[in-house]
C-alpha cells in the first residue's frame, strides 16, 4: 500500500482511498449512494446544503461526506439511524420554503430534490407557514429561471466562477432574503451557460426553449455527437415522438468531460425550422416545381451529364460543408471523381491554398484534448477558442489557472475568460510580421534557425513583447502553437502556417490546428480535396480548390449542405459564379430565396440527428452515431442520396446498404492515423501591407457558424450572432471622421455597402471587423483585404 493510501470502512466494508479525498468521492467510487445537493464532482466543495450528513464513528455529530477528508481507520455509516435521521431533518428544512407543486414544475421527473424527497421526505409537511416567494429573473433566451424553487446550493454560482470563468450569477441578500441571480437584469453571455441547467439540482434553472414541452418519461434518449465545433462533444438527444425536444451532455472525460457548449445544446431547435425543405424541387423555365425523388435524380443526371458531354467533366465542381458526415463527404467526392472531376473541396473559408502540396494528411490538434490541460505555454495564432471551440478553451483555461502562459497573436484583444500572458493585437497584414518577429526573438535568444528562415526574418523589428513571447515558449517544457480559425481564413495562411511551424520547431513545441467544424478533420480524410483522395490517396488532378472553382467559374456546381453566400470566404464571387452556371445542384436542408435564385435542382437533406454518420474530431477521434428521428417530409440522409446518384451514373462500387458499409472503407485507417503536423513551406518573402489603408477583419460569431445553428431561434437571440456592424477601434473611427452612431460606407473594387458603426477598443487600429455570414456585408466580397471608408 502506498503512503498516500488509507483504508476506511463504509457500512462495514473496507475500502481504499487516497489521503485527503473527501468521503463522498470514496463512496461514489464504490457505488454507495450518499444524498447530496451542493456537491458536484467538477466544482469546489461548498458544504452548504448538509444533505450528505453521515455517521462517523467517534464523531459526536453527523458529518458532511462532501467536506470530510478520509482518515485511516475511519468507520463510516451512511444508512445508520443517526445518518438517516440527520438526512431526513435536512430534507424537512429544505422543503420549508420549497414549493410542493412538482406537477407544474418543468424539472418534475428529473429533479434531485423530488427524488430525495421521495426517499427522505415526510408524507405530510409539519409547516403551515407561508413559503418565501422569489421573483424570477430574465437572464436571457437560453436559461429559464424559477427562483422560488432555488435551494441555494450555489452550484450555479461556483460553475460561473470556476468553469465558465465569468461570474454572472451570485447570491445577493442574506438569510431568508438571499436570492440567486444577476442582481441587475442581465443576459448571461457565457458560451457554456446552458450547463447550469444540468447542475441545478432543482427546477430553478431550466432549459428555456424546451420549457413545458415534454416530460422526461415521455422521451427516449439517443446518444449522438455534437454537430458544430471540432471538439465532438458526446451528447444525448431527448426525443418525443418524431421530434428532438432537447439535448443534454453525455459524460466523456476525454472529450467534453460533463459539459456542453450552448451552441451544441440549443441548435436542435433548427431541426424543426419552418424553412426545412420537405420535398425535392426542380426549376423549369424559372419556375420551381416539387417533384418526387425519381424525377429529381433523373434531372440531376440529365443536367450534369449534359454539361459533362458538352464541356467536359472539368466544368463540374463540388463544394461540401465540413459539418457533413464522414460518410456523406466520402461518397460526395467518390461520386464527383467518378464523374471525372477533381474540382472538389470543403475548405469554404480558406483563401490561401499555395502550400496544398505539402499540407499535412489532415490538420489536427497535434495532441489530445486532455494534453491541452497540461501545457506550460501555448501560442494561439488567429484564434478565439472561447467562442470557436468553447471546450478547447476550457482545457486551456485549466492550464492557465495552473500557471501556463497562454498567449495570442490576434487582430483583436478578444474578451477572454481567463488571463492571457501576452496578446499581440495586430492587423491581419501584420500577423506574419509578428510571427517573424517572434522567430527573430528566438534567434536572438540563441535558437538556431535555418538559412531560409534567417533570410526571411532578417529585417523584422523585434520588440519586448515578441521577446517575452519567445522566452515563454522557449522555457516551457510542454508547449504548443495553435493555428485558429482566423489564421486558416487568412489570405497569407501558408505564410502563417510556415512561421508558426518554424516557431514550434525552434522551441520544441507542437504545432496544431483548431478546426472550425465538426468534421473539419474528417473532410480531409474523406478526400474532399482537389489535390488528394481519401486517406491521402493520390488521384488525378489537382483540381480547382474552393477559391479557384469560383474565380474560374464552372458550368455546373454541386453544393452539399451549405448556404454558399454566407458560408464561403467570398460570398459575392460565389453568387456570381453560381448565377452564371448552367446547372447548380444543391443538397440542402433549408430553403431560402437566394437558393431559389441560383439553384436548378434542390435535394432536401437530413441533418445530424436524422442520419447515421460519423465525425472526426480535432484530435482525429472517429465518433459515429445513428439517426434518432426521421427527417422531415421527403428529406433523405445524404449518404442514401449519393448512393442512388452513384447508381444512376452507373459508377462502380456504389452499392452500399448502410452508413456503416460506407464508413468501413475508411474507419480502420482513420483510427490508426496520427500524422505529424510538421508540414509547411517557407515563402520567399513576407507580405507587405499598404500603409494607411483600412483593413477588413472577419470573425465568425459562435451562433452563425452553419445553416443549422443559424436556424435555431433561441441561439439567434443571443449576443453571439453576426450583427452587420462595422466594428472599429475608436481611434480608427476618429481618424476617418466617424462619430459613434454613424453609418460607414465601405467599398472595394467589387462592391460597396453601408453599415452602422460600432466602436470597439479591443480591435487593432486601422481595422474594421465585420462578422461573417451577415447578408448586409456580402457585397463586400472576401473576408480580408483593404477597404475604402467614408461617412454618411
Amino acid at each position, binding site marked *: 500500500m502506498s503512503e498516500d493510501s488509507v483504508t476506511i470502512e463504509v457500512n462495514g466494508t473496507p475500502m481504499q482511498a487516497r489521503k485527503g479525498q473527501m468521503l463522498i468521492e470514496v463512496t461514489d467510487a464504490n457505488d454507495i449512494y450518499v444524498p447530496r445537493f451542493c456537491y458536484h464532482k467538477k466544482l469546489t466543495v461548498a458544504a452548504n446544503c448538509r444533505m450528505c450528513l453521515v455517521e462517523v464513528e467517534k464523531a459526536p455529530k453527523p458529518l458532511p461526506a462532501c467536506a470530510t477528508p478520509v482518515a485511516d481507520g475511519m468507520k463510516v455509516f451512511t444508512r445508520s439511524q443517526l445518518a438517516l435521521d440527520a438526512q431526513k431533518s435536512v430534507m424537512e428544512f429544505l422543503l420549508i420554503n420549497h414549493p410542493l407543486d412538482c406537477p407544474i414544475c418543468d424539472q418534475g421527473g428529473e429533479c434531485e430534490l423530488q427524488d430525495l424527497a421521495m426517499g427522505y421526505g415526510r408524507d405530510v409537511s409539519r409547516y403551515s407557514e407561508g413559503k418565501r416567494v422569489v421573483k424570477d429573473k430574465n437572464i436571457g433566451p437560453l436559461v429559464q429561471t424559477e427562483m422560488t424553487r432555488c435551494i441555494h446550493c450555489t452550484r450555479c454560482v461556483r460553475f460561473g466562477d470556476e468553469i465558465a470563468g*465569468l461570474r454572472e450569477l451570485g447570491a445577493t441578500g442574506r438569510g431568508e432574503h438571499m436570492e440567486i441571480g444577476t442582481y441587475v437584469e442581465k443576459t448571461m453571455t457565457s458560451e457554456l451557460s446552458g450547463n447550469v441547467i444540468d447542475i441545478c439540482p432543482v427546477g430553478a434553472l431550466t432549459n428555456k426553449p424546451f420549457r413545458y414541452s415534454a416530460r422526461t418519461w415521455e422521451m427516449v434518449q439517443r446518444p449522438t455527437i455534437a454537430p458544430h465545433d471540432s471538439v465532438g462533444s458526446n451528447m444525448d438527444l431527448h426525443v418525443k415522438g418524431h421530434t428532438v425536444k432537447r439535448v443534454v451532455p453525455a459524460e466523456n472525460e476525454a472529450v467534453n468531460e460533463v459539459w456542453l457548449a450552448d451552441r451544441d445544446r440549443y441548435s436542435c431547435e433548427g431541426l424543426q425550422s419552418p424553412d426545412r425543405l420537405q420535398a425535392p424541387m426542380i426549376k423549369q423555365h424559372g419556375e420551381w416545381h416539387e417533384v418526387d425523388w425519381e424525377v429529381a435524380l433523373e434531372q440531376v443526371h440529365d443536367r450534369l451529364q449534359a454539361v459533362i458531354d458538352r464541356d467536359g467533366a472539368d466544368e463540374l465542381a463540388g463544394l461540401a460543408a465540413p459539418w457533413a458526415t464522414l460518410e456523406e463527404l466520402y461518397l460526395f467526392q467518390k461520386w464527383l471523381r467518378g464523374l471525372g472531376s477533381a474540382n472538389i473541396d470543403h475548405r469554404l473559408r480558406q483563401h490561401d491554398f499555395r502550400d496544398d502540396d505539402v499540407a499535412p494528411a489532415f490538420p489536427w490538434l497535434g495532441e489530445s484534448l486532455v494534453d491541452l490541460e497540461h501545457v506550460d505555454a501555448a501560442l494561439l495564432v488567429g484564434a478565439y477558442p472561447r467562442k470557436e471551440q468553447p471546450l478547447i478553451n476550457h482545457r486551456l483555461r485549466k492550464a492557465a489557472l495552473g500557471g501556463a502562459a497562454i498567449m495570442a497573436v490576434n487582430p483583436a484583444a478578444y474578451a477572454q475568460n481567463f488571463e492571457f500572458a501576452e496578446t499581440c493585437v495586430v492587423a491581419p497584414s501584420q500577423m506574419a510580421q509578428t510571427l517573424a518577429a517572434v522567430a527573430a526573438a528566438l534567434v536572438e535568444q540563441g535558437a538556431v534557425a535555418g538559412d531560409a528562415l534567417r533570410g526571411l526574418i532578417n529585417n523584422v523589428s523585434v520588440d519586448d513583447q515578441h521577446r517575452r513571447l519567445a522566452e515563454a515558449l522557449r522555457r516551457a517544457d510542454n508547449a504548443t502553437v495553435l493555428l485558429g480559425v482566423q489564421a486558416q481564413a487568412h489570405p497569407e495562411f501558408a505564410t502563417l502556417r510556415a512561421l508558426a511551424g518554424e516557431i514550434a520547431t525552434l522551441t520544441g513545441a507542437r504545432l496544431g490546428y483548431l478546426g472550425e467544424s465538426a468534421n473539419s478533420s474528417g473532410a480531409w480524410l474523406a478526400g474532399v480535396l482537389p489535390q488528394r483522395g481519401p486517406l491521402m490517396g493520390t488521384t488525378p488532378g489537382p483540381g480547382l480548390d474552393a477559391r479557384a472553382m469560383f474565380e474560374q467559374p464552372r458550368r455546373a456546381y454541386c453544393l452539399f449542405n451549405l448556404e454558399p453566400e454566407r458560408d464561403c470566404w467570398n460570398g459575392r464571387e460565389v453568387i456570381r459564379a453560381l448565377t452564371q452556371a448552367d446547372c447548380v445542384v444543391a443538397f440542402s436542408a433549408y430553403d431560402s430565396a437566394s437558393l431559389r435564385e441560383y439553384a436548378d435542382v434542390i435535394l432536401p437533406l437530413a441533418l445530424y440527428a436524422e442520419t447515421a454518420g460519423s465525425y472526426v474530431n480535432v484530435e482525429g477521434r472517429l465518433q459515429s452515431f445513428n439517426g434518432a428521428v426521421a427527417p422531415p417530409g421527403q428529406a433523405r440522409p445524404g449518404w442514401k442520396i449519393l448512393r442512388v446518384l452513384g447508381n444512376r451514373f452507373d459508377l462502380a462500387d456504389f452499392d452500399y446498404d448502410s452508413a456503416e458499409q460506407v464508413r468501413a472503407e475508411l474507419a480502420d485507417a482513420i483510427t490508426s492515423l496520427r500524422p505529424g503536423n510538421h508540414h509547411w513551406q517557407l515563402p520567399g518573402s513576407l507580405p507587405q501591407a499598404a500603409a494607411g489603408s483600412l483593413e477588413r477583419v472577419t470573425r465568425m460569431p459562435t451562433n452563425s457558424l452553419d445553416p443549422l445553428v443559424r436556424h435555431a431561434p433561441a441561439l439567434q437571440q443571443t449576443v453571439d450572432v453576426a450583427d452587420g456592424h462595422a466594428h472599429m477601434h475608436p481611434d480608427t473611427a476618429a481618424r476617418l471622421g466617424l462619430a459613434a452612431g454613424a453609418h460607414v460606407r465601405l467599398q472595394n473594387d467589387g462592391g460597396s455597402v453601408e453599415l452602422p458603426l460600432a466602436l470597439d477598443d479591443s480591435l487593432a487600429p486601422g481595422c474594421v471587423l465585420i462578422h461573417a455570414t451577415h447578408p448586409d456585408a456580402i457585397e463586400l466580397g472576401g473576408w480580408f483585404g483593404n477597404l475604402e471608408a467614408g461617412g454618411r
Partner: protein
Amino acid sequence: MSESNESIELSAHVREQIDAWVAKYPPEQKRSAVLSALREVQHENDGYLTVALMDAVAGYLELPKIAVYEVATFYSMLETQPVARNSVSVCTNISCMLRGADDIVEHIEKKHGLKLGESSADGRIYLKKEEECLAACCGAPMMMVNHKYYENLTPEKVDEVLDALE
C-alpha cells in the same frame, strides 16, 4: 433594475480612501477592501449605493460586478436604495420576539405610515428591513437608532425616541 450603461468614476477622495484600505491587505487580496470601499462610497452618496457606484467599485478593485452586489446586499449597513436620514432597526430575533418585538414594529409601521424596509414620507425615519440579534437580549425588546441602543421598549418609549429625531 437593469444593467447600468453609464460608467462613473469614483471621486479622488474615495479612491484615496480605498487605496489606503487596499494597502492593508496582500496585493492579490484586493477584494478584502470591498467592504470599506462600499462604506466610503455610500458615505459620499447620501447614505446609499447605486448600481453605477457599485460597478465603479468593482472596476476599481478588479472584481466581477456581481461579487460587489453580493457584499452590498448582504451587509445591513449598506443601502442599495435612497433612504431617510435616520436609520431605525428593531431587533426581531428570538429574545426580542418573545418580549414583543413584533408589536413594536407594528406600532412604528402604523404611526409613521411605512412598512419594514421603507422610509417615511417626511424623510426622517428609515425602518430597516430586518435586524438579527444585536446582542442586547437582556434588555429585550430593543432597537438601534443611528448606532445607539434603546432597550426595554414600550410603544411610548419608542415614540419619545423617534419624535425627537430631526
